[in-house]
């Protein structure tokens, strides 16, 4: 079982790495990180701040775009090319296929983020000629960005298990945007009463809490991130992603592929 998932994940990774769109996006993200150096130079005293803010924002946004645009084709491409039938005709279960696809794209994003993160640290080194102790928190922010990618990948996979690629992209991106406002939604739930309050509370638990995974502004100012936050955010992102993948498996198990 594990070997089969691993093989599907490895193939998904290979396929994603061959995709030219991926390189374009990474190049664009690195260009933005490089651009941060220029922006910092025309301002006063915020070189490092701009490099961290713009660099991490570029990683986050381009990573989300990669997660969505590759994620939406994970299932539909296999159906379109009829390769899915070949895979499922072998001793591969549908849920193993979904899990493999998830791990494959997740791995791709982790590797991408590693390279884009290197770009940010190179830009930091360029503007200040040395690293500071507080730069370690940038690594935590990058880790949280990877958790965001895992959430978005799982959601995209869930939508692509029953919807067209275009609609999957719209759904996943909308949920990502709503997720960035999830703390406002929770604030609204806290002051609302009765059925509205229940509904808002329920919705705030269902939508992904992207906002909690964004510590870019605070790490840019060298502020530390609480250990508890790292622990619980990790638990939250993994459980939420597992929930979305389970949803994708449930839909895909019942899907008529004929």
């Amino acid at each position, binding site marked *: 079982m594990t070997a089969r998932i691993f093989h599907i994940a490895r193939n998904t990774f290979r396929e994603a790495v061959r995709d030219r769109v991926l390189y374009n996006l990474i190049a664009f993200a690195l260009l933005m990180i490089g651009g941060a150096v220029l922006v910092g130079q025309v301002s006063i005293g915020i070189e490092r701040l701009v490099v961290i803010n713009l660099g991490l924002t570029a990683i986050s946004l381009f990573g989300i775009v990669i997660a969505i645009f590759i994620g939406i084709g994970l299932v539909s491409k296999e159906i379109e090319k009829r390769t899915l039938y070949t895979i499922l005709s072998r001793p591969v*279960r*549908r*849920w193993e296929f979904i899990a493999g696809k998830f791990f494959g794209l997740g791995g791709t994003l982790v590797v991408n983020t590693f390279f884009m993160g290197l770009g940010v640290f190179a830009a930091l080194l360029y503007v200040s000629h040395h690293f500071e102790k507080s730069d370690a928190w940038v690594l935590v922010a990058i880790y949280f960005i990877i958790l965001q990618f895992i959430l978005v990948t799982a959601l995209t996979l869930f939508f692509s298990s029953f919807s067209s690629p275009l609609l999957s992209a719209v759904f996943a991106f909308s949920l990502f945007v709503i997720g960035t406002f999830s*703390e*406002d939604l*929770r*604030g*609204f739930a*806290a*002051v*609302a*009463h009765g059925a509205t309050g229940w509904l808002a509370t329920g919705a705030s*638990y269902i939508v992904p*809490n992207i*906002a*909690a995974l964004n510590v870019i502004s605070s790490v840019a100012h060298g502020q530390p991130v*609480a250990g*508890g*936050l790292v622990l*619980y*955010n990790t*638990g*939250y992102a993994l*459980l*939420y992603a*597992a*929930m979305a993948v*389970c*949803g994708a*498996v*449930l839909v895909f*198990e*019942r899907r008529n592929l004929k």
Partner: protein
Amino acid sequence: MNATRRVEWETSVLLLLCLAGSVFMLRRVERIRSSATLREVLFISSPQAAKRLSLGYDGLMADIYWTRAVQYFGNHHAQGAEEYKLLAPLLGITTALDPHLTVAYEFGSTFLSTSPPNGAGMPQEAVKLVEYGIKNNPDDWHLYYNLGFIYYLELKDYKNAADAFRRGSQLPHTHPWLKILAARMSEHAGDLETARMMWSAAYQTSTDKQVKANAAAHLRALDVDETVPILESMVDKYRRDTGHMPLNFANLVRSGALTAIPRDPTGRPYKIMPDGHVEVSKPDALPFIEKGTPPGYVAPPPKFSYSE
């Protein structure tokens, strides 16, 4: 049970467990990041920038900002805050996005003008907010009424209060109360009867439950503030007539000075203290009272909610 069915069952159970686990984790995250959205930072402080960034959806953005202003005020009020730094900018952005959102002027000016800890204690900012509202909604008499109320209650500026009521009273579809208040303000601004009229007007002109409850509480407080000095003068007269202090109001009833034991608006009897002062039995039940409280008494913040 076939293999597919078993996978579905196991996945469903796992999904529910993951949902419960993620909710648990999220609650833990919230404990660490409590009130993260309402921290003392306003990322877009310029109303014009907020309007441009709304991409034409300024109505919806105004609703969101108004909700954030209410949340900000509610959270700070619940914590007994003395400062409400972001309240005026939040209300400024809300009303710039939607200048016709009259509820933001009405409630927002109350949040701003009321003294801490019940409000931000920024009556001048409240005046600016309502004047902006009047500029954009010149036919809404409620705004002139709000403006007059701020001048009267928080700034004790009876001339401007009278002027605001007079301006409001000249509108085509105004409330008759405004004409009466304008006249009253010009002649007897500082007395209790005027205060009673103001709060009666607030009670009668509003349809909001919280506003009505607030006005009723002020009316009860005015009743106490009026009754306590009268009772104290009766106690003093009894002392002068008999040469000793009455132990309770039953003594005054027996002497014929009173026909019954006097009770406050909550139905509780007033008390005579050994030094001759009169106090209410339970001051916490009568917010806003200025007389009839024990020495050094500090009233708790009134419990009211603006969320409904």
